[in-house]
């Protein structure tokens, strides 16, 4: 047994898992409040990272300013997508809604390939120090930042939904659209807000991932990795999304470890979450924290 490697992978899994959790939260937010499954979540994330990269490298803005601009851009982008693409499809069967976001993801992927190229681009060094020592363990600053930002975003989500007026409106809409509307909540506004918040948070996750690795269009695979996470956690539970994200992050790193040390099958890192996904769907489709669907005739 290689304990150092195991420990390293465990930490990696935890940090990546937190990021999955953040992206999964965006996904769940949209699903819960608008009943739309966003297959383009990964592309949202990459677009946010690219826009931030563009502001830093091409417009020569400082990092913080570029980050803020990118966040503003993505918020507006989220609202526009909701208004132009998804509003006409309210009330359509689920396959139409799924397909329209898939179409959106293909469109965005190709557009980004065209605008920003197929190669990975690094962000300039944002932090002075590359690694920080915590309790004798060398941790990369970017990883630390990603952890801090993830926790911060989760905290903000909690605060927003628990204590703010708009959060309450969104919860009410998620619970029952008709009742919410009859109580004077603008459902249209809530829908736009869900997409705006989701795009904004995706942008944060994208920039953090860009800092940790590099920005490239292949990062959009996170949008697919999110599915195992949300299914494990339960499709309509925000806490479940975080827990599911961490579970999947740790799981894929553990699969990598077991495979590399004992099994030597290869490629377990990408496929293991999908086996887990199928098993969960077979035995407990509503996940760990999701509400069980009960149908009455």
């Amino acid at each position, binding site marked *: 047994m290689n304990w150092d490697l195991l420990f390293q992978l465990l930490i990696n899994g935890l940090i990546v898992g937190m990021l999955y959790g953040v992206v999964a939260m965006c996904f769940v937010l949209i699903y819960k409040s608008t009943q739309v*499954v966003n297959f383009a979540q990964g592309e949202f994330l990459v677009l946010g990272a690219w826009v931030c990269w563009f502001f830093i490298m091409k417009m020569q803005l400082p990092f913080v300013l570029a980050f803020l601009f990118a966040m503003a851009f993505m918020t507006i982008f989220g609202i526009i997508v909701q208004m132009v*693409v998804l509003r*006409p*499809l309210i009330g*359509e069967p*689920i*396959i*139409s809604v*799924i*397909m*329209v976001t*898939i*179409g*959106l*993801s*293909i*469109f*965005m*992927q*190709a*557009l980004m*390939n*065209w605008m920003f190229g197929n190669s990975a681009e690094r962000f300039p060094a944002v932090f002075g120090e590359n690694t920080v020592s915590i309790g004798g363990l060398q941790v990369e600053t970017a990883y630390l930042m990603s952890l801090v930002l993830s926790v911060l975003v989760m905290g903000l989500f909690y605060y927003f939904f628990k204590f703010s007026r708009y959060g309450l409106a969104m919860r009410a809409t998620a619970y029952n659209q008709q009742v919410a509307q009859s109580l004077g909540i603008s459902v249209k506004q809530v829908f736009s807000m869900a997409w705006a918040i989701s795009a904004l948070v995706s942008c944060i996750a994208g920039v953090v991932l860009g800092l940790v690795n590099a920005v490239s269009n292949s990062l959009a695979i996170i949008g*697919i990795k999110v*599915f*195992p996470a949300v*299914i494990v956690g339960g*499709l309509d539970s925000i806490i479940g999304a975080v827990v599911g994200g961490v579970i999947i992050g740790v799981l894929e790193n553990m699969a990598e470890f077991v495979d590399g040390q004992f099994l030597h*099958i*290869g*490629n377990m890192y*990408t*496929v293991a979450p*999908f*086996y887990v*996904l*199928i098993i969960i*769907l*077979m035995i407990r*489709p509503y996940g760990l924290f999701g509400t069980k669907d009960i*149908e009455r*005739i």
Partner: protein
Amino acid sequence: MSHVPHPRPCGDFRTSYSDDTSLFRTRFEGWSIYAGIAALLVAPLFLNDYYISQMLMIGIFAIAALGLNVLVGFTGQISLGHSAFFGFGAFASAWINNTTGLPVFICIPLAGILTTAVGMIFGIPAARLKGLYLAIATLASQFILQDFFARADWFSGGSSGSLAETVNFLGIELDTDQKYFYLVLFWVIVSFLAVSNLRRSRDGRALVAVRDHYLSAEIMGINLTRYRILSFGVSSFFAGLGGALYGHYLGYVSVEGFTILLSIQFLAMIIIGGLGSVTGSLLGTIFIMLLPQFMEEAASAMAVVFPAMEQGKAYIKEMSVGAVIILFLIFEPEGLIHRWRMIRASWKLYPFSH
């Protein structure tokens, strides 16, 4: 699905059940389809290689799209893993041929049957899941099968791919596009006839009942599990058949061809053509297969004004696929076939359009 009436000629009243489920709605429709088949039979004598190979590819993909339409359009299940079954058929046919030495024209339907079995296994989750959950489960099966292709050296040749022999039918080597065209045409006719017949049989009506209201269907005595898995099997059969024809046409099968992007293209074909419509599957396939070429031409024309268009061609082609999916879902969710019916209706009812 569509709410446009099908105007029939005056005096065409259906007075018996067999009239109501006839294969061709009018005699003219029947004759035009026979004429179309006859035209296709002589087409290789007149058209050049480029057109023939295009028609061949359309035929192959139309078979697979038709299979997906049985699953999505008839039964109302969602599959994001169709290209994995398409790929499985391609590998299976090459594998059967290479290991057992059976003639290729037998291997092609055998590959379809093998794919049916695999499709039914991956369809088991469908017994309990629906809608979004099912979409995600089939997404997982896409990745699992893709991983299997890349790894199973004994079956698919792993990352190096596998060679597929050309078809030899009773001593005639089908080595040119013109000869292969007839084989594809044969299977296209068989598949479209089979699905048209399925649609008007008891099983076909059961599938549609499962789509329209599964609870009522179950109360009426339709076994949901059985019919859901059955529709996965039927859809996989056509996917495997199309895949096998594709593999032997190219002569070489490799893992890279069967990604999720192709699955999405299959879905795009049936959505653009018209969900639940046999003719629509063909129309949608033609649309999606010709779209890249149309965009290529359009981009070249635009490049005269905007030189940037020239290098962006490949991306414009990809973007156009995404864009047409979105545009069709917003403006014409019932597909090309619906548009065609409207045109036909307005001709028939002229000058009273309503």
